């Protein structure tokens, strides 16, 4: 046993030696976010400004919201940027996170092939669209990965009076990230629920169209959650606070409002703390 320990320590020491350079400036702030935020490229635009203003370098880890929340509850992250309101509120209620601050929003779309075999275009609501897809046994790619988007699929199915565990012949569960799920839907000519940002990024490639109209049940709010400071090193808790303040600052909110115009011809997110509110 002691010998095994010795070898482990030896290997760990060698690994640490190999990464000496990195370890020195490692992890000023560990930001855990969802794949949809990463894939949109928003952080790439914001974080350099954050670093410039505060000198804090954020390390970004992108996972599904389920995993992000778990990393928060295990204090394996300093700060979270997620879009799963119910899970976020539970995390705050449990005391593992303090202060859930809604930062920005966009909306989900139900995308599908332009032929629209299930008639989603003429659906009266997103829930009605889900009902039509299920009734037509149309192909539908579910994230199936406990992400914020997957949770929204389930909420829509419940709203439509469907059993969330229901499977119809065209139902596919990808267990993959948003980008890959969109690609699968494009390849299989299937319907898929996606956040608008990732959808716009992939739209050209997959040849699917956004068929749903924005509605309250497709609203998608992103919030910053600070992990319980008592479970973090004091300087990390302080940086998490700085990040939260940065995301709420008018200047940052303005950048969020502008983000995406260049590449997609329209903003991807609507900031929630910018006065007066620009028309969406």
């Amino acid at each position, binding site marked *: 046993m002691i010998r095994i320990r010795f070898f482990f320590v030896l290997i760990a020491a060698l690994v640490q030696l190999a990464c000496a350079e990195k370890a020195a400036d490692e992890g000023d702030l560990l930001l855990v976010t969802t794949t949809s935020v990463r894939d949109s490229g928003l952080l790439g635009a914001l974080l350099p400004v954050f670093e410039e203003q505060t000198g804090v370098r954020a390390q970004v880890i992108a*996972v*599904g919201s*389920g*995993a*992000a*929340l*778990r*990393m928060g509850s295990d204090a394996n992250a300093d700060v979270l940027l997620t879009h799963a309101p119910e899970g976020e509120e539970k995390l705050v209620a449990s005391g593992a996170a303090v202060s859930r601050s809604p930062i920005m929003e966009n909306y989900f779309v139900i995308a599908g092939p332009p032929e629209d075999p299930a008639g989603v275009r003429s659906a009266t609501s997103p829930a009605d669209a889900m009902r039509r897809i299920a009734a037509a046994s149309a192909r539908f790619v579910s994230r*199936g*990965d*406990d*992400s914020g988007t997957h949770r929204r699929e389930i909420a829509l199915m419940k709203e439509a009076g469907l059993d969330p565990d229901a499977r119809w012949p065209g139902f*596919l*569960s*990808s*267990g*993959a*990230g948003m980008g*890959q799920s969109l*690609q*699968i839907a*494009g*390849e*299989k000519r299937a319907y898929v629920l996606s956040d608008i940002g990732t959808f716009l990024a992939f739209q050209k490639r997959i040849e699917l169209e956004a068929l749903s109209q924005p509605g309250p049940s497709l609203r998608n709010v992103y919030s910053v959650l600070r992990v319980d400071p008592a479970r973090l090193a004091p300087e990390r808790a302080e940086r998490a606070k700085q990040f939260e303040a940065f995301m709420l600052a008018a200047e940052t909110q303005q950048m969020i409002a502008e983000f995406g115009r260049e590449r997609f011809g329209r903003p991807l997110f609507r900031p929630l703390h910018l006065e007066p509110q620009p028309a969406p």
Partner: protein
Amino acid sequence: MSPPSIGLLIEITARTLAVCLPALVIALAIGLPIGIAIGGRRFKGRVPLVSLVNTGMGAPPVVVGLLVYFALERNGPFGELSWLYSPQAMILAQVVIALPLVVGITLAAVGALDEDWDLQVRTLGVPKRWRLWLLLREIRLGLLAAVITALGGILSEVGAVMAVGGNLEGETRVLTTAILMYTQMGELEIALGLAAILVGLMLVLAGLLTAVQQSGRS
């Protein structure tokens, strides 16, 4: 999120084998003859060919996956097959990954034979069809190394099968993609359980093959 049932674990494991074993058989069927042909001859262009094989042995599976993806996507050259995000695509990608491994190790095994071996066999007047049999017997250790390496390579591979299979539940979800998925979902205990199955599977298969490899020794 409820943990996957035993039935689901068996299903994922069965699909893993249903993808990997055919891929292995196809790679062997194509790779062994090529390896023996290249290994046993001297011809012009052999060196570039062998270095091509050696490069293939180190080809990153995720790159193979990407290339297979482009070949199979709807607007790609083989889009009409509709193979993308199906087990066929996964088998194809794994054959491409395993083939250079099989060819490379086989030709190394043939090349490692005593230079006079062929001459000896010829002088003994062994008929041609028996010569091949003798050759296979002679290099069987190398052949089994090829089988084990190729199997290990494709059984543990995740990048390519994720790219071309898509991890679709009940269709293309195999052990490695399921492990990755549950890890990213934060379901670390389930991921660990699947990982144990994968390692156990490799242990059993490698054990069986090693038993075969060593059985002929005296």
